[in-house]
């Protein structure tokens, strides 16, 4: 054995560690920040990476850095329950989420990266007469917007999901459901990696472990960002920071109507496939799907209070499991393997803010609250357009920060408030 190479990869001490697998190839280049960029994106989650990718792909801009405080997709991108759908109530939301869903449908080909996108359908249960009415209203609104959505009777729900309990003899009986067949799930960390790889291949710098600590703003115009690695100049800056949007906006000298709350999720150990669609219920506060590997993935509502701690109370988990058990008695045999929390940025109308800020050349994409994952491609697409052209895309014009002054709120509490 050549004793000179004891520090080479695959060698532990003087013994060759033959059993260790090869290190996976790097998906994106590791870079040191340059002194200046045309555009800096603050936040290396799905939305930030998608923004950088579409800036490069759709607008030919590649002198871009994505600056991430922690590690790539270490925030909400890899903490959500991966549900994808577009059956929102209002025209503005339907348009942007449907644009996103259409992008999902070809995303793996576009990025050249597999992400287990699976259109297994999304069921949204109704449990009372008023629930049925509001779900049907939503359904008709979807039909007018050309979004696939259909009404299923309890028996049809049972046919689709044999393990569900449709007995009338429970606290919240299933009275029917809306079903969006094109909805589904994707593997969330792979989505981030796919965007990161594609953006990096186009020349975008991805800089992890670098916290933005302030903005260089002169004459109300952003000139760059102060970071833990020094100041980086920038022609334009996009804030895509989810739960930390209020903190960043404050550093830039303006306020956003956002409250940061913990949203928890959990998985069971790997089980045989028993659930081949996504089931959501706002009334009993749970949504559940089964990942490709076999773990049941569940989430519910946010914890009640403001927090940046990425954890919440166990009573919230107990509450959602009680709901899940009533719907799926078979789950009583499953165990909770792991729970975690992410910090979601909640707006008063449960709709996002995407557009200009009071500071010139500083743009914001925030407020996706509990349902941002499904919007990742569409959000990046319109944010890239907004940054590249300096004006909002048709799809994100209604989601401007000034809607809170004009009163043109987009109230999606019904479609978005609880269940995602």
């Amino acid at each position: 054995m050549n004793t000179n190479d004891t520090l080479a990869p695959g060698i532990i001490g003087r013994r060759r560690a033959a059993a260790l697998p090869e290190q996976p190839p790097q998906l994106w280049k590791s870079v040191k920040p340059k002194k200046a960029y045309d555009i800096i994106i603050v936040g290396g989650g799905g939305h930030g990476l998608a923004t950088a990718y579409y800036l490069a792909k759709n607008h030919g801009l590649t002198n871009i850095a994505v600056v991430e405080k922690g590690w790539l997709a270490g925030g909400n991108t890899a903490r959500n329950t991966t549900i994808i759908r577009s059956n929102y109530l209002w025209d503005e939301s339907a348009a942007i989420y449907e644009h996103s869903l259409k992008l999902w449908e070809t995303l793996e080909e576009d990025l050249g990266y597999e992400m287990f996108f699976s259109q297994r359908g999304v069921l949204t249960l109704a449990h009372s007469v008023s629930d049925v009415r509001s779900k049907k209203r939503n359904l008709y609104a979807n039909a007018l917007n050309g979004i696939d959505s259909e009404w299923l009777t309890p028996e049809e729900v049972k046919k689709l999901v044999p393990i569900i309990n449709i007995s009338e003899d429970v606290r919240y009986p299933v009275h029917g459901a809306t079903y969006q067949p094109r909805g589904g799930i994707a593997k969330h960390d792979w989505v981030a990696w796919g965007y990161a790889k594609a953006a990096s291949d186009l020349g975008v710098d991805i800089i992890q472990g670098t916290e933005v600590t302030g903005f260089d703003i002169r004459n109300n115009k952003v000139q760059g960002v102060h970071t833990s690695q020094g100041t980086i100049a920038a022609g334009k800056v996009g804030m895509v920071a989810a739960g930390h949007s209020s903190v960043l906006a404050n550093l830039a000298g303006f306020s956003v109507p956002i409250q940061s709350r913990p949203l928890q999720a959990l998985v069971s150990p790997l089980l045989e496939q028993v659930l081949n669609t996504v089931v959501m219920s706002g009334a009993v506060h749970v949504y559940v799907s089964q990942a490709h590997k076999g773990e049941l993935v569940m989430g519910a509502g946010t914890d009640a209070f403001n927090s940046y701690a990425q954890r919440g109370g166990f009573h919230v988990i107990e509450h959602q499991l009680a709901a899940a058990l009533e719907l799926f008695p078979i789950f009583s045999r499953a165990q909770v393997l792991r729970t975690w929390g992410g910090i979601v940025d909640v707006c008063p109308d449960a709709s996002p803010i995407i557009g200009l800020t009071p500071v010139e050349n500083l743009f914001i994409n925030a407020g996706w609250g509990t349902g941002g994952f499904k919007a990742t491609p569409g959000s990046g697409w319109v944010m890239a357009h907004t940054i590249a052209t300096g004006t909002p895309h048709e799809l994100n014009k209604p989601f401007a920060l000034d809607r809170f002054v004009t009163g043109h709120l987009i109230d999606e509490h019904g479609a978005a408030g609880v269940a995602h």
Partner: protein
Amino acid sequence: MLYIPCPHCGLRNETEFHYGAEAGVAYPDPNALTDSDWAKYLHIRANPKGWLAERWVHFAGCGRWFNLWRNTVTHEIGPAYLPFTEQPKSPANGQEGLKA
């Protein structure tokens, strides 16, 4: 689960309370406001990373609103106090976190 000190009932489980966001937001004079001032009053509430003075109501107990200092990073609970009384000093003691 937080244990929250209700000023009237003592230490109780978080599940007995509802949350009310930032404390001490004064009701403005509607006739003296611009649209953007009104929007600010309606929609903007403090969202700091660190100590926050916030409102809670003990709905399953005395039913009364009160204010509480709480840290949004550590979930540490500070002093509770009644509305319209003098606000105790922030437990941050000058070591304020990032404001928002």
